[in-house]
């Protein structure tokens, strides 16, 4: 006996929603999913009419669904937004070049303008070249730090008012767990925020319209709508720490589907005791980007790459960092430390 949709009570139910436990047909699921994203956008007042919004697009499932839903909602509810796709080309052969092909098809399918900014044009280094120099151990640090700035720089080039990204509920719950496990109280406090206000010059406000959308629903939405997305793991990323957090959450979800939203709520309701010292946000003295140090992480990493001392930005080399940035000579021992590549 097929189960009947609990919403329209007519068609056959095609999925069980993890968040509510409701069994819905395809049509009722599409409208429930889209309505929830709309409610998220409206209740958090993510956008204002007339704004230009850049959708961070990787070609993966989350950003493909985000682009599709933003396009639909902008028309249905007359948000008055000027939408465009913004992609970062990290320069990873066999991974990003393929996923960017998907983004280019999305550009046609959704009829949205597309801007691609590359690490090569911004920093003079592709990830392929960086991995050649630093190896496979700390490459994700470079990629993550560079990507954050690259999206901002692309947004500034296009005069975008806001960036939205495809982070979903599962991603945010993972990040909460990771920040707890690392004791990173500053990130723990801000990682559940649905949007960041402009933090200063050169930083474009960001938001996450899919913050409360479960990964299962995003994948099924893309599957039922036959959206064109790309799914391959980055060839350089073992990303072990997030992988463990992710597998742990999936195990919890299998036992209790609300676990994901529960972890997010825990993160949201956490308050930090007064008197806990937080890093003070300032600006990088070299590039002007937001930073809690005199030089931003991106400039330190780049300095290390360009000098052939890739470990400069990795780990605790604060004393050496000061020395090198003041152009003071290093001892042989110090140079050896910063050059060492551990595979």
């Amino acid at each position, binding site marked *: 006996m*097929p*189960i009947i949709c609990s919403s329209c009570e007519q068609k*056959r*139910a*095609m*999925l*069980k929603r993890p968040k509510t436990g409701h*069994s819905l047909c395809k049509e009722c699921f599409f409208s429930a999913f889209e309505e929830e994203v709309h409610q998220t956008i409206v209740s958090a007042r993510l956008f204002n009419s007339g704004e230009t919004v850049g959708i961070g697009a*990787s070609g*993966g*499932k*989350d*950003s493909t669904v985000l682009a599709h839903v933003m396009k639909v909602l902008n028309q249905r509810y007359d948000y008055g937004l000027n939408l465009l796709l913004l992609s970062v080309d990290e320069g990873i052969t066999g991974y990003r070049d393929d996923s960017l092909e998907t983004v280019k098809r999305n550009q046609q399918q959704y009829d949205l303008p597309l801007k691609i900014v590359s690490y090569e044009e911004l920093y003079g280094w592709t990830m392929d070249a960086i991995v050649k120099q630093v190896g496979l151990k700390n490459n994700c640090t470079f990629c993550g730090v560079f990507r954050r700035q690259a999206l901002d720089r692309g947004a500034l080039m296009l005069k975008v008012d806001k960036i939205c990204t*495809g982070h*979903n509920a*599962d*991603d945010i719950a993972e990040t909460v767990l990771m920040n707890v496990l690392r004791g990173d109280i500053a990130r723990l406090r801000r990682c559940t925020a649905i949007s960041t206000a402009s933090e200063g010059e050169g930083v474009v406000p960001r938001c996450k319209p899919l913050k409360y959308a479960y*990964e*299962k629903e*995003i*994948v*099924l939405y893309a*599957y*039922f709508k036959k959206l064109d997305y790309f*799914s*391959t*793991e*980055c060839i350089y*990323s073992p990303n072990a720490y997030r992988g463990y957090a*992710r*597998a742990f959450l*999936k*195990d919890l*979800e*299998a036992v209790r589907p609300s676990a994901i939203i529960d972890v997010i709520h825990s993160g949201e309701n956490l308050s930090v005791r007064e008197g806990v010292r937080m890093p003070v946000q300032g600006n990088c003295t070299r590039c002007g980007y937001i930073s809690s140090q005199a030089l931003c992480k991106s400039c330190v990493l780049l300095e290390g790459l360009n000098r052939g001392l890739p470990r400069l930005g990795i780990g605790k080399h604060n004393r050496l960092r000061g020395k090198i940035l003041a152009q003071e000579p290093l001892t042989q021992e110090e140079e050896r430390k910063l050059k060492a590549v551990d595979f």
Partner: protein
Amino acid sequence: MAAPIALHLEFGGGAELLFGGVKDHQVTLPSQSQPWDMKRLLVWIRANMLKERPELFVQGHTVRPGILVLINDADWELMGELTYELQDQDNVVFISTLHGG
């Protein structure tokens, strides 16, 4: 004796990488004394189809958490999951959600 049954299996969202990169598979399950259900299908897939790292696909008696299963386009959670009795010409889809977005 249950007669042999033909199935269309589809792997997506990155799960195809564990099956030699091939997404679509037409398979025929041999005749056996008990009816073919999803639990027995998973055992058969593991023994006959998985090319690498089986722990990324099956865990214990079921699929690894994070892999979605659709039977004839419907969420298997509505179909009895492991106890669903497969019919000739059924379409079973496995989609990994564990790959990057």
